[in-house]
């Protein structure tokens, strides 16, 4: 333990205590979130006449409540994964553009423009999605269905704009800035000596990036993608406006299907009874646990990389 050599002042104790207290309050809030969600979820789960984990329908307000997380969890995972698949390559491209391609003077300004994507409120994306993207996506969706319909994802008899694909696209736009920002930071940290060595040996810019920047940045990009995944899973209002709110498990992402835990909470809260609120809280608990796991895994990857970087230095 490091002890300061100087005489301790009377004010030091209380101030130190207050700052530790603030940190402990933070921990307590995290614990309380888990505890109180469980406390209010249990009565509803006891009133449930079906299995919460496997049931697909969501009718907690009925006299004989029947509800389950099945379809909602599936929709949450599918839409987030799709968003991740769409957003990650673009985000890595954006990060490379800002770290290694854009003119030095413009780089920070261009980075700020991408960051602005994160500043647009979720509800505005929802509004934009409904007014612009939903009608716009009808054409491309029909095209995919006509020509690539043999791929199970693009199959199905009906094609609509308010589909899983449109919702995933909005999610992808929303998580792009965070993946791009973290990847950019990691790419900028790539050892300059290695980059210069690669260039000196006659490598082209792409070869230099492939040999020195990408291997160095891979763990960072992976954890950035996982943080984005967590974001996408918890995103509520934008997808609540776009999802058709069905309770069906299907991988036909062009059809009139789709829902997520968060969207269901936003859409179902208004008319929820006591049991209904409990059921929504139970679904929120599941969402909390999933995002907690994804985020902790992402942080674990980053932390390990930090150790590695320090050891290598």
């Amino acid at each position, binding site marked *: 333990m490091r002890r300061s050599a100087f005489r301790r002042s009377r004010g030091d104790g209380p101030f130190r205590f207050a700052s530790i207290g603030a940190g402990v309050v933070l921990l307590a809030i995290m614990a309380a979130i888990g505890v109180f969600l469980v406390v209010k979820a249990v009565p509803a789960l006891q009133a449930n006449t079906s299995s919460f984990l496997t049931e697909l329908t969501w009718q907690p307000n009925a006299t004989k409540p029947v509800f389950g997380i099945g379809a909602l969890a599936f929709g949450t995972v599918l839409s987030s994964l799709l968003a991740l698949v769409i957003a990650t390559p673009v985000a890595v491209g954006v990060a490379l553009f800002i770290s290694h391609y854009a003119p030095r003077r413009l780089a920070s300004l261009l980075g700020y423009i991408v960051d602005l994507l994160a500043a647009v409120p979720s509800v*505005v994306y929802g509004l934009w999605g409904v007014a612009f993207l939903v009608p716009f996506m009808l054409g491309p969706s029909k095209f995919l269905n006509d020509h690539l319909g043999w791929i199970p994802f693009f199959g199905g008899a009906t094609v609509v704009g308010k589909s899983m694909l449109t919702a995933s696209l909005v999610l992808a736009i929303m998580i792009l800035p965070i993946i791009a920002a973290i990847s950019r930071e990691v790419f900028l940290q790539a050892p300059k000596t290695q980059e210069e060595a690669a260039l000196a040996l006659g490598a082209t810019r792409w070869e230099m990036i492939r040999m020195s920047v990408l291997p160095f940045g891979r763990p960072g990009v992976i954890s950035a993608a996982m943080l984005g995944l967590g974001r996408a899973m918890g995103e509520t209002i934008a997808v609540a406006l776009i999802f058709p709110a069905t309770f069906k498990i299907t991988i036909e992402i062009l059809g009139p299907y789709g829902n997520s835990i968060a969207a269901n909470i936003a859409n179902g809260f208004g008319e929820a009874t006591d049991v209904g609120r409990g059921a929504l809280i139970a679904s929120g608990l599941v969402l909390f646990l999933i995002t907690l796991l994804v985020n902790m895994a*992402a942080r674990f990857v980053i932390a390990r990389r930090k150790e590695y970087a320090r050891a290598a230095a």
Partner: protein
Amino acid sequence: MTVQIGIQPISAARRIKDRLVQVLVYLAFALAVIPLVSVLWLVVKNGIGRFDLEFLTHSMRNIGARDAGGGAYHAIIGTLEQVLLASLIAVPIGLLTAVYLVEYGEGGRLSRIISFFVDVMTGVPSVVSGLFVLAFWILVLGMPFSGFAGALALSILMMPVVVRSAEEMLRLVPRELREASYALGVPKWRTIVKVVLPTAFTGIVTGVMLAVARVAGETAPLLLTVFITDSINTDPFNGPQMGLPLYVFDQAGRPTDTAIDRAWTGALTLILIVMLLNLVARLITWWRSPARRR
């Protein structure tokens, strides 16, 4: 065997690959900017029509389902009060936590645990923080739906952002400043209050503004905690309030064109507030950064 001397020209295949990647990278950036431009364009185009004095000074009270007119005054008041209250809760806790992590933690076990959970807290979905306040404050403690409940939910989202940015700024304060202060016999807590915090002040303000901008646009936690009202309610501790994001969501869900128009104007107002906060925060950092380098 002939010995090649000098620099060989790069083969066509390698050059083409290099060019191709360059094009793809530029394309990725363009692809990322298109939605931003599209969103901003549509919001301005559809929102400017109703962006008038009536919108900014009137509530939705006594506005019939099909009536034009009405405004978001009640929602703007609500958002300002909720965000202010959320900041009053989150900034002291977040700042003190950052002080603990930087000045007192010394890499001990507790500080590592706190630091880890601050990161995890950043990932708590906004709807979950709303559900937590609903479960704890409203259902268990029996408090009413109110602006304050919404502020509680927003403060949970703000805290980790404030901690992280303040921590970063405090770490930038040179060690020599602290040591000079100690050498003069100034106790640690006075050094923190009088030397460290003032040095990092602008950086901390920037971080707080970015945190405020982040939560000002949150809808989901408000939906579950402040409820929805069409009337002006200036008391955040009593009765349902409105918030600007919530107003947009509410109006967008109504079936008439006049309501959709109001939703767009609400979105325009919201974006203006959030972007302004963002811009000012970035300007402060930009304005400060050359000074720091000097």
